[in-house]
């Protein structure tokens, strides 16, 4: 994306101002529960940035959000509001888990890519119905994706608890309750952690950290997203349709076809969201598999203004806030919910600040545009 450097500084400055504002509001909340905000923020920072494991955990925590953020952004760029990331990644994760435990005897270099592919297929399949309904029947995608989220919850529950539940969990008879989960995924389908690679550089991560190769993969995907959207004719059509479908149609672009492709792509990327947890942290899928990445992905895309760099940074910010929250809860006795409030304020203020800044920049551009055309 080509940008006028004049306004770049303003655009970069606005989220930082917003974060600063949110921090002030957060301080008031912390004061209200009779804690010292300076101490809380200090702890948050030190706990997050002074410890190697915290840093790695932030990256690990950001990984699913980069995927879901990119998935939302692809939709946004085409003018589609994919609220269904949540359902799409659960279905994708489930299909991945299925192929992960059911297929055996494949070498890792086939099995792992196959599992990743299945996750994408799952996400795309779950995105297919809403976009079909939108393009052919005019059903708004927000409604249908929300509904499909609920269906996916129930479907996953049914498959895990009723159909594929692992009955041989190796517990001694009469000892404990078995987990309601799918069988464990074959080792050939698991994603290796980055520990070995990082130790080459003298960085030794402890074992309780699950930073794995999905993180660099997510960064790579962000780069790919940039090229696709801003450098290819398909991306051009995506943006044209997203901003003015009637205009794009008159130019010979088929909005329906672009909607279809964009939404399926969004679903496919959404399918990757759960893999970092599934193939590294858990190694199986159970009923309590993490939820909410989809909705946080919307916030991430919004904060990142649908740009690849913005999305990665916003995801890292979320990762930091989550890790920092654990720190302040443990060391200062401030409940994690305080940090959740901080997150909420931050999202709101970033969105508002960037809108205000956007208006200002548009006004400036208008002046600039008029300067050239006063004669006519």
């Amino acid at each position: 994306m080509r940008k006028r450097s004049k306004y770049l500084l303003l655009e970069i400055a606005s989220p930082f101002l917003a974060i600063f504002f949110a921090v002030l509001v957060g301080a008031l909340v912390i004061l209200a529960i009779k804690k010292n905000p300076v101490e809380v923020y200090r702890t948050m920072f030190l706990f997050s940035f002074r410890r190697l494991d915290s840093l790695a955990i932030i990256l690990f925590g950001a990984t699913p959000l980069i995927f879901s953020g990119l998935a939302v952004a692809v939709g946004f760029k085409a003018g589609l509001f994919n609220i269904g990331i949540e359902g799409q990644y659960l279905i994708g994760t489930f299909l991945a888990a299925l192929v992960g435990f059911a297929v055996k005897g494949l070498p890792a270099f086939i099995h792992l890519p196959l599992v990743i592919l299945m996750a994408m297929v799952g996400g795309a399949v779950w995105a297919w119905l809403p976009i079909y309904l939108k393009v052919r029947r005019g059903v708004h995608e927000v409604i249908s994706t929300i509904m499909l989220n609920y269906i996916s919850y129930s479907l996953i529950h049914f498959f895990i608890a009723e159909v594929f539940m692992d009955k041989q969990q190796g517990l001694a008879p009469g000892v404990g309750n078995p987990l309601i989960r799918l069988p464990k995924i074959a080792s050939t389908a698991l994603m290796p952690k980055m520990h070995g690679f990082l130790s080459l550089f003298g960085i030794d991560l402890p074992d309780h950290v699950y930073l794995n190769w999905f993180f660099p993969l997510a960064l790579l995907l962000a780069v790919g997203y940039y090229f696709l959207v801003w450098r290819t004719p398909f991306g051009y059509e995506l943006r044209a349709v997203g901003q003015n479908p009637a205009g794009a149609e008159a130019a010979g672009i088929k909005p329906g076809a672009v909607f279809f492709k964009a939404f399926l792509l969004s679903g496919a990327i959404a399918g990757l969201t759960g893999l970092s947890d599934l193939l590294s942290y858990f190694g199986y899928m159970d009923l309590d598999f993490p939820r909410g990445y989809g909705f946080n992905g919307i916030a991430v895309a919004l904060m990142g203004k649908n740009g690849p760099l913005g999305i990665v940074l916003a995801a890292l910010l979320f990762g930091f806030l989550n890790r920092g929250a654990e720190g302040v809860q443990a060391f200062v006795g401030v409940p994690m919910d305080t940090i959740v409030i901080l997150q909420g304020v931050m999202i709101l203020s970033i969105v508002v600040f960037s809108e205000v800044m956007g208006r200002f920049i548009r006004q400036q551009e208008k002046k600039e545009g008029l300067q050239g055309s006063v004669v006519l």
Partner: protein
Amino acid sequence: MDNPKMEVSIVQLRGITKRFPGLVANDSINLEVTRGEIHAIVGENGAGKSTLMKILTGLYQPDGGEIYLNGTRVEISGPRQAIGLGIGMVHQHFMLIPRFTVLENIILGSEPARRGVLKDKEARGLVEELCRRYDFKLESQVRVWDLSVGQQQRVEILKVLYRGAEILILDEPTAVLAPQEVRELFVNLRNLKGQGKTIIFISHKLDEVLEIADRISVLRRGRMVGTVMAKETDKRQLSEMMVGRPVFLKTEKSQPRVGEERLKVKDLTVLGNLGRPAVRQVNLTILAGEIYGIAGIEGNGQSELIEALMGLRKILSGQVLIKGQLTSDKSVQEIRALGVGYVPEDRHRRGLILPMMVWENAVLGLHRLRDFSRPTGLNFKNIFAHTNRLVREFDIRLGSVDLPVRNLSGGNQQKVILAREMSRDPGLIIASQPTRGLDIGATEFVHQQLIKAREQGRAVLVVSADLEEVLSLSDRVGVIYNGEIVAEFRPEEVTPEEIGHYMLGTKSLLREGVGA
């Protein structure tokens, strides 16, 4: 026209200034309007006419200057206060409720009532008395959706009179009317003037202004150029005042040298948005090297016809052949690839992607051409070279091609579209309302381009609500009424009045093969 009695000015504006970010819309404007005169305010788009009137009706507050009514200084805080002071505005776009009757529309918002119960009889009496006094031919119990555009405009004027306006501001009142309706409007306006009302008439159609107004004030780029007596001026002087330089009013063109058939439409029927046929059994043929104009009052199927030709709307029955090829099973893209350049009537909705950059808009629809992209990536170098060439050749005025096209003026936006569509060397150009909303300079430019295209042997289809434009550009003219081409002429064969009859549907020559 009798001379206005030179009494005290009913409206006096002194040094009115209004600034918007980045431009001064009104720059210390002085204006005096005498009681009982018809005072025209002319100027190009963006000259500041509407801003000035919005200040007079209280929609905008001026940043500087004073308003005097009958010699007393007033502050006008809103339309409600303006009408209280006797200033009423008749908008260009009617604000009527179609399913209400004439009476209901007129009294809406200031109904005579006792204890919340409408005094029906009294209201009706009031309105009918108004109609009688000003000789407005209107039935008060007819629903507005049954009225013609001219009649609807009368309802709008009555609305303002009903509220006690002494000063009526009419914003481009003739833009939507056929010549006959314009004449009726002028009769009404003279009646109003005869009864002592003051009329401020905003327009950019100089012939009409010269006919109806007593005095004419000219605005240019936010400044008052001057006020002249209508009797003592002419079109040439006025347009020079408006533009600031001499203007060629007549479009010069040579005899057509026609070639093969480029567009053939056979018995075309197309449905409108309401599911009823909007285009009925239309037949037309356009040859290479000629301009075919479609005249008609807006909403008579022009838009639907063009959309059907471009593949943007389904054809119900009949055929469209472009360069001899049937288009019924072709996509928009395939139709354009036959060599069709398209200048849509609504350039913001159909012609451009406003938030996208100028260079992105310069290749819209061409972006898949080999020169500009491979599936793996856009060729920025070629796209920019192409854009810069268009900017040069079409003299597009802009700060940078790397700014959203939304920032360009209307004329320059239209140039971007025209330049883009011409750049693919089209055999057929379909231009719908090509000069709508453009100022004189840009209009002139668009006309020249269309005529140049014709001279290069392209076939050109022009649809315009501006009858004068159609007649001056076209080699042949078809008149569309209620979805049918009711007559076909060569422009020199007919008077505008006669065409007006066809436009209003009071006369029909359907399929009698007059003209080509």
